[in-house]
């Protein structure tokens, strides 16, 4: 492999990692605050993709901008879903069966709603930008992927800043780190969880919108990405955003470089193999490895 090949693979892995991180971070926030594994994440990603498509086709809004516009819509939808359904789940410190069933059922409902509204044909968002590339020396980079990557980084940065520097973000982190202490400190659990859930769904919608301009989609869209999100979250540890970033990068690197050795169609198998490997070798994810290193230092 030449240096140019290597560099372009590195670049495409990095660009892939950005979007992977955005799609996983919503699940992480929801898991961290509520200990709910959001199996319906794929469904909300699908909605985000279709929403971006509708905005693009009906109002000629740029698809990337449209993806950002899906965020507030999906945020409100997420808040409503929390208020109507999720709020009623038993509060727990670990995932419960009712929460898994609810989210799985919700996914099925969303999927079928998608079939009802948009039918089962493949759709895609196609703009003049879709096929354009920028050349950096000998390396060609897809403009669209670059834009999506930058958009993803901006969103992750905003989320991280929000979690660290606002009082609401602080109460979200407080709930993630120690639910009980957060409660006696005065954190209003239901309200905070509702907003965190909205945020998670907002990020699902945003990721869906961004992915929708990269890939074609149908109402079953998101299934493969949901599995990837699991791998990333397991890799990164279940409740930290920097962990998600690292997990996304590792998965993207493995997927991208595996193309050299195995056909592209086996990419998902590689994700699964990685998941199994991590669960066997490093059940606590990379975060546990870092914590161990810190303890030894």
């Amino acid at each position: 492999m030449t240096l140019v090949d290597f560099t372009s693979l590195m670049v495409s892995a990095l660009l892939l990692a950005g979007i992977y991180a955005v799609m996983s971070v919503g699940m992480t926030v929801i898991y961290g605050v509520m200990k709910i594994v959001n199996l319906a994440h794929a469904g909300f990603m699908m909605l985000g993709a279709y929403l971006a498509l509708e905005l693009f086709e009906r109002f000629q809004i740029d698809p990337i901008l449209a993806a950002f516009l899906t965020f507030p819509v999906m945020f409100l939808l997420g808040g409503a879903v929390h208020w109507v359904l999720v709020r009623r789940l038993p509060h727990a410190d670990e995932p419960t069966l009712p929460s898994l069933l609810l989210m799985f059922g919700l996914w099925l409902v969303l999927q079928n709603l998608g079939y009802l509204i948009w039918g089962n044909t493949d759709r895609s968002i196609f703009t003049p930008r879709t096929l354009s590339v920028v050349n950096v020396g000998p390396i060609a980079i897809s403009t669209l992927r670059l834009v999506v990557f930058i958009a993803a980084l901006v969103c992750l940065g905003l989320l991280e800043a929000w979690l660290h520097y606002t009082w609401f973000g602080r109460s979200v982190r407080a709930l993630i780190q120690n639910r009980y202490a957060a409660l006696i400190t005065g954190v209003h659990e239901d309200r905070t969880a509702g907003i965190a859930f909205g945020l998670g769904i907002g990020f699902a919608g945003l990721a869906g919108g961004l992915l929708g301009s990269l890939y074609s989609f149908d109402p079953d869209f998101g299934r493969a990405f949901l599995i990837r999100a699991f791998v990333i979250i397991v890799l990164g540890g279940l409740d930290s955003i920097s962990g998600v970033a690292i997990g996304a990068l590792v998965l993207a690197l493995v997927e991208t470089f595996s193309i050299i050795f195995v056909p592209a169609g086996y990419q998902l198998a590689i994700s699964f193999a990685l998941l199994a490997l991590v669960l066997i070798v490093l059940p606590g994810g990379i975060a546990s490895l870092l914590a161990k290193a810190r303890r030894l230092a």
Partner: protein
Amino acid sequence: MEDADPILEVDKVTRYFGGLAAVKDVSFKVRQGQIFGFMGPNGAGKTTLFSMIAGALKPSSGKIRSRGRDITGAPAFKLIKLGIARTHQIVRPFREMTVLENVQVAVHFGKQAVTGRAAARERAIEALGYAGIDQLANYPAAILSVGHQKRLEIARALATDPDLLLSDEICGGLTHAETSEMLALLRRIRDSGTTVMYVEHDVKAITSVCDRIMVLNYGRKLAEGTPDEIQNDPAVIEAYLGTRARGRS
């Protein structure tokens, strides 16, 4: 007129676990500006009573009021808005945050919400200073010693500007020197106008710091009075030391 609206009034509170009464018909009033303690042997119902006052457990019957307002079973975030904050027996810091951030979380939920980042920060630093750990503000909470974590627990509660501080075994696990510093801190908190309700296992600690003490035994109120009265109460002595063996030679 006496106690028109005591800051805390517990009225015939009972709590059953299954058929067993962990707390039975306990009534008392806490007046403003006191350190009010309750003590009792293991299993006397201290923690159950405390949990009911702090809103973590619902009484089977009875009422808990603060300034005439019914707070029975009210969730923590409401109590804090009413000026009732608590610390917990087992310290529970937000481990991944700095000491200052830990307190900043609490600042926003106080009686009067603090607006503005600078003001919130200032209030948090003030609370840390009060608890005597302002020099540790930028350390991660996870590395603090138990003594300092307990102070952090107090700073976090004080940051909500409470009128009543409920404090559960705050001296548990502390060394002798740390305990006396902690008791001095409780006195300072009282002197600054916050009423303190204090539950402790350690008889010496509680009798040295409290203005008024209630003794529980088998879930019932055994005695109430000043530390002197309590220490000389035959029923209390009996509960702690047992009855004197009657000599049959």
